[in-house]
């Protein structure tokens, strides 16, 4: 199990450095590898270049909204298979509906506890 988890690499796309760090520490404590990007462009670049097994995606990103990034990932043949969890501080119900319509596997509203995040990621890999 630990070995499987170690193979999993999670890309976190988040512009708030504190939240980026928190998510990264939590997932690494859970045995996952993490890749970090402070904006969507950087995130896509990383996803193209490295093995990414899951993306934790914020929506309110600088320069390009998370929706744009999600649309691009889902329309890229090499990337569309990557499960995406939308991780946003926007509690709008429209955001949730939109996230799932665009292909997200889960939708988390900040603030989330470490436990919630852990469970969410575990569920993704269990189902995936």
């Amino acid at each position, binding site marked *: 199990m630990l070995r499987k988890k170690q193979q999993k690499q999670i890309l976190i796309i988040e512009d708030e450095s504190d*939240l980026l*760090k928190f*998510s990264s*520490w939590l997932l690494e*404590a859970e045995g996952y590898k993490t890749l970090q990007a402070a904006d969507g462009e950087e995130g896509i670049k990383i996803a193209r270049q490295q093995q990414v097994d899951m993306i934790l995606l914020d929506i*309110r990103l*600088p320069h390009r909204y998370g929706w744009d990034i999600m649309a691009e990932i889902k329309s890229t043949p090499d990337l569309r298979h990557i499960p995406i969890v939308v991780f946003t501080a*926007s*509690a709008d119900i429209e955001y949730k509906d939109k996230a799932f319509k665009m292909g997200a596997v889960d939708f988390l509203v900040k603030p989330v506890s470490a*436990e919630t995040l852990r469970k969410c990621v575990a569920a993704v890999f269990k189902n995936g």
Partner: protein
Amino acid sequence: MKKVLAICVCFVAFCAFSAYAAVSADSPVYVRVGIYENQPKIFTDEQGNAQGFWPEIISYMASKEGWEIQWVHGTWTQCLERLKNNEIDLMPDVAYSDARDQSYDFSREDVYISWSTAYTQKDSRIQTMPDLHGKTVAVLRNSINYTGPDGIKKLADSFGFDCTFIETDSYLDVLTLVQNKAVDAGVVSKDFGHLHENEMNIKPTAIILQPVHLFFAFPATSQIKPYLIERIDYQVKQIQADGNSVYYQALKKWFGTNAIEKPVLPDYAKWTLIGVLGLVAVLGMGTVTFRYQVRRKTKELAADITEREQTEKALRESEEKLRHVFEAVPEGITIADLDGVIMDTNQAVVNMYGYDSKDELIGRNGGEFIAEKDRERTKDYLAGLIEKTVVRNSLVTLIRKDGREFPAELSAAVIKDTAGHPIGMIVVTADVTARMQAIAEHEKIGEYKELDKLKTNLLSTISHELRTPLASIKGYASLLLMYNEKLEEKQKNESLEAIDRSTDRLTELIDHLLDMSRLDAGLLRLGLDTVNPKDLVTAAVEEAKMRAPRYRFSKEINGRLPGIIADGRRLRQIIDNILDNAIKYSPQNTEITVRAEVKGADLLFSISDHGRGIPESEFKKIFERMYRIEQRLQKDPGGLGLGLSLCKSLVEAHGGRIWVESVIHKGSTFYFTIPLKPADRVRSNVEKETAKTNPDN
């Protein structure tokens, strides 16, 4: 073949001889002759005896040929019908026509030449054909002068004259109608008319129809016809050749004239006659030519008159139509001279200005009805009309009779005479009150919708911004709780610091929201104290470094900066806010610089970045509260978007001012000043600021 031919000839000869023999036998030949009332040519007297020119000729011929004449009386139409049906054998006084040739046969020798004349009342002004246009004309049914090729009907049609023909059964009926003024004119044979004109108090007009040759007519299918034609032609020739014959006597008796004379004159007179005839022929030709020309000219004249009348009628109808349209058009139409004096208006103008009639407007200068503020502009606008010919859609304010003003749209066109010289103008005025109100309402609705949208977005943004530091607090706290043993010491410390920082951030946001609320409520007050600008800038920069480690922050303090009386917390808030914007709008690893220096009587702060820049058109707008939010949501997430408007309020509360300079894609520099000695002004400005942001206070 020759034998057959000979037999045929003999047979025909026998038939002809038999027919001749049949009628030349001792027993009389009964000849049925039609008679109608056309004095003096043919008529019945009071005793019912046939009288007139034709009966005398016929009687003579009958005596010569041994005929028993049976007179069959009827109307002209009846006689023709009987002739057609072989109910009579002979009909005198019949003019030849192609149409009649289908139904009858005719003698080869013409007996008489006659023509017809139109008669009218003595006081009538009818003289020529054009005068019959639109008139009623009595005619003899089926007469050659009515329906013949040169009859009055054909003549009227060829001229295009609209005549109503009243058909009668006799010439007497025709003239009686004329006499009684039941018709305007009547056409009869000239002899008949001449005979009765005095007793009936009527007069001939100059309308004379083409002369016709009159013959004996026979039924087309009569057995006796060939015999009669042959005998009558013979007799007519005889009597016309004899100057003393019944023919000439009858002419003289009934018409007072001689017909064409047959050659019975001595030789010496013959040549005279030939000369006379020649002269007559020439004159006749001349007359015919003249008549043709007169007829042609009459026709042209009639056509001209008709055309003129038609043109006049068309013009009247056109003018009426135009007037109707002029008055009915819902837009105001004014016709004025070049000085703007009103010459005519339509009802729409009268209604628009609230007057009772156009008389109250005509003669006045149109400028009187334009509001003072628009008068000069409108004058220039109409002055340009001469050059441009048409000017369109000038929005002006006009004044009604009761003094109320209303918005209107003017369009004008110059009126020119046939030489192309401007002589006036036509101005179209549309009351656009309803339209302007609709636009204003639409704009207001648009504004409300915009405000509503912005409010919704504001709430969404506030929610997001508050949740972000909360996410850090919650996340790190739960991380520490769940993974305390797994985390390194450094990680634990950083987690606690992040919690602390986020708590501060959250506090700041809440304060920000509260500040905006206080501003709206007019409760914002500055906490004044001595502030060290250098320390202020240093602290702000250091904190920014912690907050955004991926950016390069620097500070520049130029010269010695004196302490200032200000609200240090608020100044820090201003700098932090501008720094936050710089971070959000600049690419990572770019430099953001905070500067402070003394500039005249102020302390000048500036924060420069290398971000995307701001368009010049938005330099003022970015300090407006709602505008900021809208822009940021579209282009860049994060932040309440209220910061710059709060900065502006806080700076101005200190007595300073705030502005931006920027170049697209190069970066922006925000400046704000704080007066070095603002003490008195600051207090009053605080009050002014709250009043401005809360005008209801």
